C-alpha cells in the first residue's frame, strides 16, 4: 500500500521532531571537560577543582579517597574530583579524550602506555617541576629512568609512584608435602613443576599465562633462564638469541605437562583465581596480587619470592611497568594539579598508597618505612632490587607499537607455541623482526 499525499507535511513534522529532540537533549546539564591533546592549558590560580583519573581503580579506589581527603585538608581551596577508570580501558579513554577533549588535569599513566600518550603531545614535561620542588632527589632513580625511557628518553613525563615487581608465588604446604626445596633456582623450579603434577587428581605444578598478558610473562621466564641482561644489542633485539630460544622451548614445554590445559586462555584473573582456589604449586605474577592470595589462602600456605636465579647471586627479570602520575598539558589549573601530584608522591602519601597496593614505593623515604619489611614478597623484591643481584631487562615501553606487538600481534602466536603448532624459534624470529622494525621506525622519527 503506497501513499504519496501529505509527504511534504510529514517531512516538515519529522524535521521539527528532530530539532525539538536535539534542543531538548541539549538543555540537559553537562560540561565539556577540559581540552584535547593539542591544547596548551594554563597554570591557573592554584585553587579550585581539579580532575584526577585513576588508571587502576579496582583495589586502589579506597586508598585514593583517603589520600585525596588528606590533600584537601592540607590544601584548603583545592578540590580533587576522583574518576576511577577501568584498568582495561584506560588507554582508549585517554586516546579518545586526547582526540576529542575532556582530558583530566592529573592522570595515572603506567609506563606501558606512556610512550603512546607522550607521542600525542598530551603530557607536560616535569623535569623542572621535580627539580625545583620537594621531590628532588626523593624519587627512586631506577624508576625515574624507567619512565624517562618509556617517554622517549629525553624528558620526564610522569612522576613515578610505584613498581610492582615480578614474583614467583609457591604453595609452601604442597612443597612441604612433596619434600621439595623452595624454587629459588630454575632446576628447582622445573623439578617442582614436574613433581607436583598429578593430572588425574587435578593437581598441577605450575599455571602458565597463555592468554592476555602472556608475552611479558614468557619474556620474563625466558630472560630469567638465559641470563641475557639486555633487551637490545645495539638496535637489534636479543629476544631470538639461541639462549632465549632454548629457554622458551623449555618453558613452553610445561604447558599441559605440568599445567592445566585451560591455561591456554589464562589472563591474570583466571590464572590467579585458579591458583587461589585449586591445588597448583606455583604461579608467576607480581606484587599486585599478593593481598588476593593472602585473602584466599592465608599467609601460612604460600610464599612470594623473586624469580629463580640463573646462578648464585645472579637474577634476571624483565621490567614491570612503573606506575606514575602525569600532568596533562590541556589542564586549566596546572598549579593546583601539580600540588596534588607532589602530595601523592610525598613520603607519607606514597607510603600509604604502596602499603595498600603491596608495591614498591618510588619515594625513597617511603621505601625505608617499616611496613616494607613486614610483607615478605615486597621485602624480598625490594631487597633484590637494591642488593645488586638483579639485572632488569627493560622492555621497550618507549616504542609506541609495543602494546600492539606484545598483545594483539603476538599473544595468539604464543598460544600456537604452547599448542606445538609453531616452534619457539619461529615465534621469536618473527617477534624480533617486528621489534627491530619498530625500533628502526622509532629511531627515524626521533631523528
Amino acid at each position: 500500500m503506497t501513499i504519496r499525499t501529505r509527504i511534504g507535511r510529514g517531512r516538515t513534522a519529522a524535521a521539527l521532531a528532530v530539532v525539538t529532540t536535539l534542543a531538548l537533549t541539549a538543555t540537559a546539564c553537562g560540561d565539556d571537560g577540559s581540552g584535547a591533546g593539542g591544547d596548551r592549558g594554563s597554570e591557573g590560580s592554584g585553587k579550585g577543582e581539579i580532575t584526577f583519573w585513576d588508571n587502576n581503580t579496582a583495589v586502589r579506589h579506597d586508598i585514593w579517597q583517603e589520600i585525596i581527603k588528606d590533600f584537601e585538608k592540607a590544601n584548603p581551596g583545592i578540590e580533587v574530583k576522583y574518576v576511577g577508570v577501568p584498568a582495561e580501558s584506560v588507554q582508549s579513554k585517554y586516546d579518545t579524550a586526547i582526540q576529542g577533549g575532556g582530558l583530566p588535569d592529573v592522570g595515572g599513566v603506567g609506563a606501558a602506555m606512556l610512550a603512546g600518550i607522550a607521542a600525542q603531545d598530551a603530557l607536560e614535561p616535569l623535569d623542572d617541576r621535580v627539580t625545583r620542588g620537594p621531590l628532588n632527589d626523593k624519587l627512586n632513580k631506577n624508576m625515574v629512568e624507567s619512565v624517562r625511557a618509556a617517554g622517549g628518553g629525553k624528558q620526564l613525563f610522569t612522576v613515578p609512584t610505584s613498581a610492582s615487581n615480578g614474583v614467583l608465588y609457591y604453595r609452601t604446604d604442597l612443597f612441604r608435602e612433596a619434600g621439595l626445596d623452595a624454587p629459588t633456582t630454575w632446576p628447582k623450579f622445573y623439578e617442582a613443576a614436574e613433581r607436583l603434577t598429578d593430572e588425574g587428581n587435578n593437581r598441577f605444578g605450575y599455571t602458565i599465562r597463555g592468554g592476555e598478558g602472556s608475552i611479558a610473562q614468557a619474556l620474563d621466564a625466558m630472560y630469567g633462564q638465559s641470563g641475557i641482561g639486555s633487551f637490545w644489542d645495539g638496535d637489534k633485539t636479543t629476544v631470538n638469541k639461541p639462549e632465549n630460544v632454548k629457554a622458551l622451548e623449555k618453558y613452553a614445554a610445561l604447558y599441559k605437562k605440568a599445567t592445566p590445559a585451560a591455561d591456554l586462555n589464562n589472563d591474570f584473573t583466571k590464572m590467579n583465581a585458579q591458583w587461589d582456589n585449586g591445588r597448583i604449586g606455583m604461579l608467576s605474577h607480581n606484587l599486585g596480587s599478593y593481598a588476593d592470595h593472602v585473602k584466599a589462602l592465608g599467609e601460612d600456605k604460600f610464599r612470594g619470592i623473586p624469580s629463580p636465579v640463573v646462578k648464585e647471586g645472579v637474577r634476571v627479570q624483565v621490567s614491570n611497568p612503573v606506575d606514575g602520575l602525569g600532568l596533562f598539558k590541556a589542564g586549566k589549573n596546572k598549579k593546583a594539579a601539580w600540588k596534588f601530584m607532589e602530595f601523592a608522591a610525598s613520603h607519607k602519601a606514597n607510603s600509604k598508597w604502596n602499603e595498600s597496593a603491596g608495591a614498591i614505593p618510588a619515594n625513597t623515604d617511603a621505601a625505608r618505612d617499616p611496613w616494607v619489611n613486614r610483607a615478605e614478597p615486597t621485602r624480598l623484591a625490594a631487597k633484590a632490587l637494591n642488593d645488586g643481584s638483579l639485572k632488569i631487562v627493560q622492555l621497550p615501553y618507549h616504542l609506541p607499537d609495543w602494546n600492539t606487538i606484545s598483545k594483539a600481534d603476538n599473544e595468539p602466536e604464543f598460544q600456537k607455541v604452547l599448542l606445538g603448532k609453531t616452534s619457539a624459534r619461529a615465534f621469536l624470529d618473527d617477534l624480533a623482526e617486528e621489534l627491530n622494525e619498530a625500533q628502526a621506525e622509532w629511531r627515524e622519527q626521533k631523528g
Partner: protein
Amino acid sequence: MRGVPRWQIYAPLGLYLLFTLIPFYWILLFALRPSGSTSLVPWPVTFEHFDKVWTERSFATFFQNSLLVGLASMVMTTLVALAGGYALARFDFRIKRGFMLALLCSQFIPGALMLVPLFEIFAELQLINSLGSVVIAETVFQLPLSMILLSGFIRNVPYALEEAAWVDGCGRFRAFCAVVLPMLRPGLIAVGSFAFVHSWNHFLFALMFLSDQGKQTIPVGLATLMGADSVDLGALAAGGVVAAVPVVIVFAFIQKWLVTGFSAGAVKG
C-alpha cells in the same frame, strides 16, 4: 509430540539448562560466600560483597543511572522507531530502497569507529558528562534495527483498517493510535525491551562520554572492579548479580511477547 518418551524431551533440556545455569551458579557462589572460602556451596551466606558494591563502590548510583539511560533509550528508540517504521511501511518515496539499504548497512559500523566524531559533537552540544549523550548515542545506534522491525509489524496490520477509521472521521494520527497501535503490542514490547537491555548492558559510550563518578553506569562500574593486577572476585560477582537482576526480570515478564514479537516482525519485510 505424542509417542515420544518424556525423558527424550527432558534429558536434553535438562542438560542444556544445567549448561546455562552453571555460570550463574558460579556468580552467585562467589557473591554469597565469604572472601577466601573455597566451598562449592554458598554457606555460610554473606552479603558483605553486596554491601561493598552497593554502598562503598556506588553501585546504588550506577544502578539509578543505568535505569535512567535504559528507560530513556527505550522510550526514545520506541517512539522514533515507531514513527520511522510507519513511514517505511505506509509511504512510498524515491529513496526508500536506498534508505532501507543504508539502515541495514549502518548495522555493520562498530560503535568504536564513531567514538571520536560523536565525542566531538557531544562536546559541542555541552553534553559530555551528561547521561543525555549516552541516551542519544544508544538511541541512534539502535534505531535502524528497531525501525526495520517495527515497519514489518506495521505492514502486517491491514491498511483497510486504517482507511475504515478515516471514513469514520479519524485523522491519520488518531487512526494510528486507535487502530494500529493496539495491534503492535508484541512488536513494541520486543523493540522496547531489546532497546532497554542493550542500553543497560552497553559499556563503551558510558565509559567514553561520562567522566564523573556520579554519572557512571553499571557496566562501567563492573569494569572498575577489575584491576590491572588484582580482582576482588566476590565484589565482582555481587556487582554481576546486581547488573543481571533487571535484565532477568525484564525477560521473565516479557518473554512471551518477545518471542511472538520477533517471529511476527520477521514474517514480512
